[in-house]
């Protein structure tokens, strides 16, 4: 199987997946939860299925209390309401008023995040992702410092990061689209998912790179693209099997593990799939592409 020969095909496939997400990001941005923006979130839980009248009653009560509802959603027996920052007193008052008008419900969750905390969560998330990328480049460059010519360790590091950025764009882009159409929100758990995907993606890429490093010694003299292609094929079984196990576990979490982790798991599912793809079809072929470019440049200058 010739993966390297068809590398442009795989790069284009990545572009096709990423582009809609990028467009969505530019048009609609990311639907950030109160974790980042600050605000309050109330979860009510009902004994019976929620009727539209109930929603209207809730809306009226909030209006009477001068609390602006940003979003209100219902799922079967639960209602989620997002508002600007309200305090405990207000919440208690709203609940008391509601209890007179609607029977058999209780407040399952009340969360308030002040705008300061929200801003910090955002900046910490951005910092964490950037720092993770940076340290991973450093580590990969260090781990592959003895890699034989024609490769250079810094190239390995940078190609690993390109694969990482690919995965971040895939996940963030898809969530921007999902957020727009399914009204889901990105919370701090999503950032956790994103960082896990980073770790997993590098994990995958390193396995392929490790094989390239080994084969560079073993197959010294063979052309670089053959070595890379062979390395990809040799690790393909492992890559697919590992990915499959992790994906299966994630499916188990998705099917059986409650509503609160659903989108977290979906982010991981997308990210793990993308991570496997990018380590096989992007990171390693990029090494070859880089090698070809630098050779061309040498030829031109020399």
């Amino acid at each position, binding site marked *: 199987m010739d993966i390297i020969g068809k590398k442009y095909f795989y790069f284009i496939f990545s572009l096709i997946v990423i582009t809609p997400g990028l467009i969505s990001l530019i048009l609609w941005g990311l639907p950030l939860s109160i974790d980042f923006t600050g605000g309050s979130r109330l*979860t009510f*839980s009902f004994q019976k299925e929620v009727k539209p009248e109930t929603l209207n009653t809730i809306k009226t009560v909030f209006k009477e209390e001068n609390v602006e509802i940003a979003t209100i959603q219902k799922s079967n027996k639960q209602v989620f309401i997002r508002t600007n920052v309200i305090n*405990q007193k207000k919440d208690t008052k709203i609940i008391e008023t509601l209890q007179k008008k609607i029977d058999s419900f*209780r*407040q*399952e*969750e*009340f*969360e*308030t995040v*002040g705008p*300061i*905390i929200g801003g*910090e*969560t955002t900046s*910490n998330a951005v*910092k*964490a992702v950037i*720092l*993770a990328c940076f*340290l*991973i480049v450093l*580590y*990969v460059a260090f*781990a592959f410092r003895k890699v034989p010519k024609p490769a250079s360790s810094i190239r390995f590091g940078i190609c690993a990061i390109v694969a990482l950025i690919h995965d971040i764009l895939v996940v963030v882009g898809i969530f921007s689209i999902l957020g727009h159409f399914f009204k889901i929100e990105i919370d*701090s*758990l999503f950032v*956790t998912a994103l*960082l*896990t995907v980073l*770790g*997993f993606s*590098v*994990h*995958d890429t*390193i*396995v392929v790179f*490790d094989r390239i*490093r*080994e084969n560079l010694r073993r197959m010294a003299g063979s052309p670089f693209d053959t070595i890379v292609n062979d390395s990809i094929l040799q*690790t393909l*079984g*492992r890559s697919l099997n*590992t990915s*499959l*196990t*992790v994906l*299966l*576990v*994630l499916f*188990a*979490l998705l*099917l*059986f*593990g*409650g509503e*609160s*982790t659903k989108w*977290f798991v979906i982010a*991981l599912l997308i990210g793990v799939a993308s991570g496997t793809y990018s380590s096989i079809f992007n990171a390693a072929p990029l090494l070859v592409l880089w090698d070809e470019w630098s050779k061309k440049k040498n030829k031109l200058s020399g």
Partner: protein
Amino acid sequence: MKFTPRILFWIIIVLTVMSILIDLPKTINIAYESPKIPLINKKISINKEITGFNSGFFLKPFNIKKDFIFRRGLDLEGGTSITLKADMKDVASDQKKNALESAKDVIERRVNFFGVSEPVVQTSTVNGEYRILVEMPGVSDVDQAVKLIGTTAQLTFWEDIGTQSAKLSSPSAQLPIGITSLFENPKKTDLTGSDLQQTTVSFDQKTAKPQVQLTFSDNGSKKFAEITKRNVGKIVAIALDNQIIEAPRVNEPIIGGNAVITGGFTTEQAKALSIQLNAGALPVSLSVLSQHAIGPTLGIDSLQKSLFAGIMGFVIIVVFMIVLYGRFGLLASIALLLYTLFVLAIFKIIPVTLTLAGIAGFILSIGMAVDANILIFERLKEEQRLGRPIDIAIELGFSRAWSSIRDSNISSLITSGILYKFGTGSVKGFALTLAIGVLVSMFSAIVVTRTFLRLIYGKGIRV
């Protein structure tokens, strides 16, 4: 000393037994009722509680006293978490750290008095802002909790210094409401709530009304004696948070360091006041930055679902590994089972607070643990295809897969380190479980699986 597979095997067995002992809950309830058995026409029912096992038993020699329990986060248990900001503008900059710490102590005491089991009170400094995070499992009445934590029970004693000085001695000090109708020229004495040694609730012997009994520290007793001495025949006002709760006339100097506040309280009020005084006054005022209350049913529901998902995930992996790698897969599954036991034991020992995200991290780490085995087995198969005998293929499989296992796991550790550093709450929990998972998975994949394989396929027992 070189570890032979046999010695390693025994070490693994010992570790496993210890982990099982730690993992087991303290009491196990067995309740089972069989359907009617035709022959004897009876139901067999077993209902037994095994209190068995006290983990202190084998830890005694090491002098470790610990109750091993799983710490559950608020999202699994239900409860309240509040982030408070301390207002430090009146505190000297070198005293800020101290003020924050003592505020933390005060809150901790108050929360403990409140009867919260395993509360978490942490301080943090973010961008020059001083914060206290309070987590109270099982508390759903946030209103009451916030009141109890945030109330500055500032006890002050006031005396009248008469007309000789027209100016107020401390103009900046806020006067308790209504004190001007009592005193011509009120002055705050140097006796405060921090001079208290202890407070208790007692009942007046005549009226049977609840009252709060104050016992001053040595220093406080002296101050109190001074105040009562110079105010014989006059009124001394006791104020709590700028509210006069009592203004008794001093009949004679009180030397013993005891005083009683009979504010006309209900028993509940007296108790609350006693708690607030006992815990001391907050050195700084606090405001709520964020809060999160989770109902108890939501927590239990999430916990059960995640546990079930975890078990399903585990079963799926075992089936998958056995289908892919046959006998090796079975061995890897046993190693995986041990891995799970080890990790759970570590969670109990540290203890790691388990949150939903943490459980997800743990389940994910099972997946990553399998990866190490897959790497090794794929390599092993490859070496076998090259015509190497199985025992050599096993050794080569392990040694050649090692570099990629090491490098990929280190990068995972880097990510979890960053998550731990920058994350808050649930994200931190996730990072910690992931890091523990990665470390233990290296042990289980390398040491445990290899030992099993060596024992089975090692020299002499060649299959």
